[in-house]
């Protein structure tokens, strides 16, 4: 297809899809309406299970099987990225040069690093109570580690962030989630069943299985993000083609 034909096909397609969309949207319930049957049931179920953050209850209790699939996607994508970005036969490694960082930047980053780390851990731990949880907190933790790159340089980051350890942690988070799921089965209930004591509403230990699954996801997301970024940093900063093999 040349460009003109492609634009015509695309234009006709977009027009058709737009018509479809408009036709469907006109039949949607009003924006901001109050008819949410599944939502109402989910709220009731979450309160019944002593979980203050209903979204966490949906993600880690009511629809925890979705989250199982989701963390498998994360795990698989990390594995896939590691495989795709592996050092090819025709590449070699060049250690990056140490970088000079302005002292103010360094001081700012080094102060905010432990703070960010702490915030991330807090967000993971309070997932069943307040907005946040394993995903969000895990991502914050991963970001915190990369402040090292800003503060010092890539070599400092590499020393403090051994990728194999994080790859192992990634697998560990995955296994932990699955084992917590199997625990329900061994307790005589269903896979992923919330068989733990539910605790007092609105306290750190409430929600039964929810905080544990949250922690497993937190470990996995944090280490997955670290490994993912490590692959891209590796490509951008270290791997170069062997001489004479590329043009």
């Amino acid at each position, binding site marked *: 297809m040349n460009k003109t034909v492609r634009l015509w096909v695309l234009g006709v397609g977009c027009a058709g899809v737009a018509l479809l969309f408009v036709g469907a949207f006109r039949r949607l319930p009003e924006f901001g309406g109050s008819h949410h049957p599944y939502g109402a049931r989910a709220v009731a179920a979450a309160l019944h299970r002593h979980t203050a953050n209903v*979204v966490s209850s949906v993600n880690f209790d009511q629809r925890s099987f979705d989250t199982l699939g989701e963390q498998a996607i994360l795990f698989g994508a990390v594995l896939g990225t590691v495989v795709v970005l592996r050092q090819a036969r025709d590449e070699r490694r060049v250690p990056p040069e140490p970088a000079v960082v302005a002292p103010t930047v360094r001081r700012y980053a080094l102060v905010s690093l432990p703070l960010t780390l702490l915030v991330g851990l807090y967000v993971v731990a309070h997932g069943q109570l307040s907005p*946040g949880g394993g*995903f969000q907190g895990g991502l914050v933790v991963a970001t915190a580690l990369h402040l090292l790159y800003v503060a010092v340089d890539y070599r400092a980051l590499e020393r403090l962030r051994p990728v194999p350890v994080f790859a192992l942690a990634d697998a560990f988070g995955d296994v932990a989630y699955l084992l917590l799921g199997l625990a329900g089965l061994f307790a005589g209930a269903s896979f992923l069943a919330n068989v733990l004591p539910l605790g007092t509403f609105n306290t750190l230990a409430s929600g039964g299985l929810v905080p544990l699954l949250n922690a497993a996801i937190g470990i996995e997301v944090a280490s997955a993000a670290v490994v993912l*970024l490590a692959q*891209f940093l590796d490509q*951008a900063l270290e791997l*170069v*083609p062997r001489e004479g093999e590329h043009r």
Partner: protein
Amino acid sequence: MTELPVLLGLLLATTAGTAAALTRDPVHQALVLSVLGLALALLFTLLQAPDVALSQLAVGTVLTPLMVLLSVRKVRRRPREDSPADGRGGKR
């Protein structure tokens, strides 16, 4: 009208999304994508979805643009190394 902030957030996110799609240079696009992430996070907060807003903030404004920028850096390094003046495959 109580929904006014939501509407403004929507328009902001749509504008940012359109801009991100139509920005052809990947480096500029990464920056606009990060603005889109921010706009979406704001919109999600207004839509009473703080959980989603938090993860969108982390993913949309930091992780995705960072990966895009790193990819651009990797991809752009190549032509410079190809030039005869610096054909040794060394760093930068």
